[in-house]
């Protein structure tokens, strides 16, 4: 019997500098994710993003550009998790030192051209990121079980 967990709202950022994008990777895991994290109680979406990027990378984000929302649903240990990722792009501040402030996480600037070949999670983000990089138009990507297109 699967029981649903409360919906989580999460804010994530695609840090760009020229043709590179910043990805995080937990040491020992083969997959990557975007800096950011869950919106805490009583916290705005953008405040959560700024807090997480400060905590994870010591970076202050200024202008954020909306790139879309992605829904991610998965079941683990009989619990159904549902996460809405609100995605933004931001310029990586010039001269910023790229380095993780968390001991078991690495931050890497990856060429946009090689993004497609990497295991980026959650997978639902990829469609939104690709769409924005190609057309600069924000998009929505819903849980594939419903749309039947995923």
């Amino acid at each position: 019997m699967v029981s649903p967990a409360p919906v989580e709202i999460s804010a994530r950022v695609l840090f760009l500098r020229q043709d590179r994008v910043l990805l995080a990777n937990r040491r020992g895991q083969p997959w990557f994710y975007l800096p950011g994290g869950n919106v805490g109680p009583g916290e705005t979406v953008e405040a959560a993003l700024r807090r997480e990027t400060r905590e994870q990378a010591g970076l202050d984000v200024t202008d954020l550009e909306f790139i879309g929302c992605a829904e991610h649903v998965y079941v683990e240990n009989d619990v159904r998790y549902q996460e809405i990722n609100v995605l933004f792009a931001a310029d990586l501040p010039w001269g910023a030192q790229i380095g993780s402030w968390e001991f078991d996480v690495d931050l890497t600037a990856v060429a946009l051209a090689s993004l497609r070949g990497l295991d980026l999670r959650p997978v639902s983000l990829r469609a939104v990121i690709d769409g924005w990089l190609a057309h600069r138009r924000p998009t929505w990507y819903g849980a594939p079980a419903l749309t039947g297109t995923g």
Partner: protein
Amino acid sequence: MSTPALMRLEARLLIRSGDSVLLARPSGGAWHELPGGPVPPGEDTERALSRQLGALAARLVPGAGGAAPAPAWRFLGATEHAGDDLGTATNPAAAAHTLTVLFTVDWPAGPPVPSDWQGHDLVLVDAGLLVATRIRPLPVAVAVRRWVIEEWPVWRGMAANAGEVGRLGRRLSVASLRAQLSARREDLRSSAFRDAAVAMCALVTAADGKIDPAERDGLRAFVASDPVMSQFSAEELEARFDAHLSRLVEDPPAGRAAAIADIVKVRNRPAEAAAVIHLGEVIGRIDGEFVHSEQAVVLDAVHALGLDAAEFALPAVGNAS
């Protein structure tokens, strides 16, 4: 003070029919809403919205098995609000902190538009009258009005500090501004738009009181490559641009008045007016920094067009960087 709760999720649908939008209003109520509602745990966003559409779903939900295939939904954007029904709180710790995911769809041609939805009256409101229509929560109203003008998905978040509340967009990159303009280029072909756009370009170019030959050449190159501006005759654009620049150099107050007179040609055309402002921002930022004097002339144009500066994410003059 109670402990703040986790953010809630809602999904709502803007239904368009011709030049009108379909809004739900509780019987006897003054405020309109978009059909939709909360997404409960255990249900995907679009599935929850489909269920909440009730009797409307047969016409509007792709794959719902209606008489004709329903059109696909388009993403309209997402908004964040908290507080009362209007969503006016500036503190996310207020009650009902909510993320609303918004979609839009066209009511299919043929079947009549129903008159009720889940105990609400459904009313058709002319898109041109949305500015004067009470829609709640307010951030959703702003997103809907922007959509009707620009058809470009927006984010309207609660800003982290109170001074920023009310900003609609964030400063878009030049690439994004140009993509947005390009997407609307079919609607940006009138001579009124051309005149207003050229006047805007000239105002920004001359904003610092001097005109560098390189700026003139830069503008020519921009006009030739821009998907919107290249729809017009290059000779005509250059002639108008040069005429504005000469006036702006010889007699700045008269030159500004003449430029504003051309800009207000699109005053009652929201899509073109918004595009003229975006174009001014593109010209201001394409060569690097959007300096204070350039922001000031774009802001003048915003006011002359009767638009709300807050909706264009122009920094308030005075603290511009």
